């Protein structure tokens, strides 16, 4: 057993030092009836080669999106990640470190998280950001609870065009806390009147930009309406690359931004792990959940970084904490920050511009197919198509030809009427001309 360094002799010596006759002796506090006599019913130890063979065979039973022309989005996006990212995050000093509780020997982690917080604040147009959350959906739920703490109110208006997972997770998180969610039926045909739903008990309004169907909207007027009523505006971003091309939520006066950062530095991983982003105004910082890294100095006066404002956190405040989150997404945040550092201002904006240009090109091409309509006029890199037949069948048929056409809206909104023929199509810098040809030809054939 290659991971276990102790030899039989050493075990005997150690038992002698302890004064025990056998290891079983050390388990004597376990009720005898609960001590297993032999091994559980699972396969025995395997060599490295055997494990690799078995898992590779399992992996081979998938057709991964990275191996085919893919237009899948709806909250997870395929982007090109430079080789340096994975190389650096696999350094043992990053990969195998723990939470930076001892700052003198954790400056690497603490400094990159401080840089990450700065980058997230810049992208979102907010004053401060935390050191990451689990994912975008849980960050959104935490944002709703944070708004409840700040306003001491009990209602949240959730846009119908918010990603269905985000709405579902927020509903789960708030269900037992006395916060009521008001959610208009998803409507892809017209803009929502969310300002009309705000009342004196509204803690926050949650909107996504670009929204679930890909539409963009200026949220400034909604922010004004929220603030006039004493409520907060929470803006959700599921495609962080969009922030290289469109006005930031902070510039539209959002109070809290909850975002999914997977697009930068992180693989698709069948949906996890990813990295949740959260940013807000300086004045709300003590209500921000999760970890924060702050700048300080050591006894020699040299700049250094520490975890700070931990009096908000569970290990100090226990049941009075702002959140129960402990482990966050440190390594995924590292991948995010390295990718964004590699891109820089120029690269990030250009990447966003390429995403948008590719999406515009494909949308124009698909809109020319008979019976196919691009539902939304504005979009960044993802838009909604209305097909002449149910999208699920079309997607299956194209998958059989090795093309991932997109995500059927019905899959995520199974109970919403009229969504059968809607298909979400996402385009990134990874989609070559040839991919677009194959999708266009495939759709043409399948929808004929």
């Amino acid at each position: 057993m290659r991971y276990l360094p102790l030899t039989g002799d050493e075990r005997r010596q150690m038992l002698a030092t302890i004064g025990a006759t056998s290891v079983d002796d050390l388990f004597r506090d376990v009720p005898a009836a609960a001590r297993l006599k032999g091994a559980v019913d699972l396969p025995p130890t395997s060599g490295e080669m055997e494990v690799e063979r078995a898992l590779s065979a399992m992996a081979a039973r998938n057709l991964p999106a990275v191996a085919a022309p893919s237009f899948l989005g709806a909250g997870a996006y395929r982007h090109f990640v430079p080789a340096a990212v994975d190389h650096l995050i696999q350094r043992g000093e990053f990969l195998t470190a723990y939470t930076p509780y001892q700052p003198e020997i954790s400056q690497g982690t603490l400094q990159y998280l401080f840089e990450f917080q700065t980058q997230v604040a810049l992208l979102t147009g907010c004053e401060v950001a935390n050191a990451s959350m689990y994912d975008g959906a849980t960050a959104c739920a935490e944002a709703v609870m944070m708004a409840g703490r700040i306003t001491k109110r009990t209602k949240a208006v959730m846009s119908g065009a918010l990603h269905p997972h985000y709405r579902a997770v927020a509903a789960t998180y708030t269900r037992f806390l006395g916060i009521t969610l008001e959610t208009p039926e998803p409507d892809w045909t017209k803009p929502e009147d969310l300002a009309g739903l705000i009342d004196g008990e509204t803690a926050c309004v949650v909107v996504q930009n670009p929204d679930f169907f890909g539409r963009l909207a200026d949220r400034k007027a909604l922010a004004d309406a929220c603030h006039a009523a004493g409520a907060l505006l929470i803006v959700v971003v599921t495609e962080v690359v969009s922030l290289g091309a469109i006005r930031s939520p902070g510039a539209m006066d959002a109070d809290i931004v909850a975002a999914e950062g997977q697009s930068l530095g992180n693989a698709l991983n069948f949906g996890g792990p990813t990295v949740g982003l959260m940013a807000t105004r300086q004045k709300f910082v003590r209500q921000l959940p999760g970890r924060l890294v702050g700048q300080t100095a050591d006894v020699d006066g040299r700049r250094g970084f520490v975890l700070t404002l931990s009096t908000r956190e569970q290990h100090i405040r226990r049941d009075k904490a702002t959140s129960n989150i402990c482990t966050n997404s440190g390594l995924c945040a590292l991948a995010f920050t390295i990718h964004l550092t590699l891109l820089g201002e120029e690269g990030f904006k250009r990447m966003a511009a390429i995403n948008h240009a590719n999406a515009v090109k494909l949308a124009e091409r698909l809109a020319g197919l008979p019976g196919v309509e691009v539902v939304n006029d504005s979009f960044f890199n993802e838009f909604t198509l209305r097909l002449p037949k149910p999208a699920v069948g079309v997607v299956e048929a194209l998958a059989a030809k090795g093309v991932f056409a997109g995500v059927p809206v019905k899959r995520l909104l199974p109970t919403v009427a009229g969504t059968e023929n809607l298909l979400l199509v996402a385009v990134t810098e990874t989609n070559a001309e040839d991919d677009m040809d194959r999708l266009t030809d495939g759709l043409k054939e399948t929808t004929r």
Partner: protein
Amino acid sequence: MSAPAPTITGNRGLQLEEPLIFEQDSPGKTAVDLPQPAQGRDRLGSLGREGRIGLPGLSEPEVVRHYLRLSQKNYSIDAGMYPLGSCTMKHNPRLNEKMARLPGFAGVHPLQPISTVQGALELIGATGHWLSVLTGMPAVAMSPAAGAHGELTGLMVIRAALEDRGDARKRVLVPESAHGTNPASAAACGYTVESIPANARGRVDLAALKAALGPDVAAFMLTNPNTCGLFESDIIEIADAVHAAGAFFYCDGANFNAIVGRVRPADLGIDCMHINLHKTFSTPHGGGGPGSGPVVLSAALAPFAPVPYVVKDGKGFRLVESVAESEAKPFGRIKGFHGQFGMFVRALAYMMSLGSDGLRQVAEDAVLSANYLMASLKDTLSVPFEGPCMHEALFDDRFLKDTGVSTLDFAKAMIDEGFHPMTMYFPLVVHGALLMEPTETESKATLDTFIATVRGLAERAKGGDAEYFHAAPRLTPRRRLDETAAARNPILRWSPPAI
């Protein structure tokens, strides 16, 4: 304040100073070559971004050097022993990383057609099966993103099950030695939290627990082995009392490392337990995450597990993604998509590598090593509770009495010796706690060096050299940092210098 390093650069040999990325900005520079975007109609409406974001421009060599230098300022389990109690810092095999990066796993989109992800669903099923057999529990919810997220999930499952039987219980009981996440999770589930004291043996005070149990108690949350490193020897009686009161028995599985393969939590009467894959099953902590916290459930709780979940039938694997599609009674969804899939791959690679026999050996060696530390150090340090410990050994700071050296000072001196300090001041039931968890992946030679080091430092402290400890650490990239100043005047981001 003493002077910084006596060098022009501020460097100390191989300890290189590294500015922030924002201080290395060359505007216009990028480390990613991208083509010029095609010209065409803009569909951004009126929302195009204007002006600079403020991101710095660096080249690839500058970026690589930056992060490499930062990495060298971190302690890690790859570098040395990390005896943090209750954190289980064990070796992270690189095979796990290699497997998680197979394109057939890492490159799968969460919303691909189900026919194209049969291998991924099989992997989720297989990982769940191992966890289910190892715990003896019939069902497992795979989606929680971390241990505390698993606690929240487990409590929500319990609350949903209670509501289903028309039972609106409001209280959760938690021992005072519990991880801070336990009461925080209970509160996040809308419960009021009540603390149960420990007895003189470092275990739950059974009489106090029985007195607190009543028809309004939803659950008792116990960490077992507990945070004093001890097995709750009354656990069967505890389970019976909890069940007799109509409550559920939640177990914090953070310390599953101590019993994996040797004791099944189901056999102890536990109804619900989260498992930190990043602890017991060696997925790397990554400087604070990602974690993964699947929750195993008894038959009574299984129907209430959150969506999504995997189902196997004659035609292969299916994924139940919404409450509307489910034939059970899921309480909802706890996370976007299907859980920390990449962590499942790593954990399964680890479980398959060790197998049923190796996992049993893991528990034995973890317990053996902790008891070896306890036996080797109990005359030097002070021990609050006698008797065999499980995977971690608890000491207190009585041995530092009248030395002028605090527990924190002592820990900082460990750093100069090349060890990550042990957990300090936790659990709270012991004054000045020092909790050491060696894990099963440390060699006897390393344990002996560690023991000799702790003994040497204890002698130095008792010998009256308090100044040495107050000034520690001396040999680190940074010396003691002013945490009070950081909290009083929070600087949470870089800002351009005022011109």
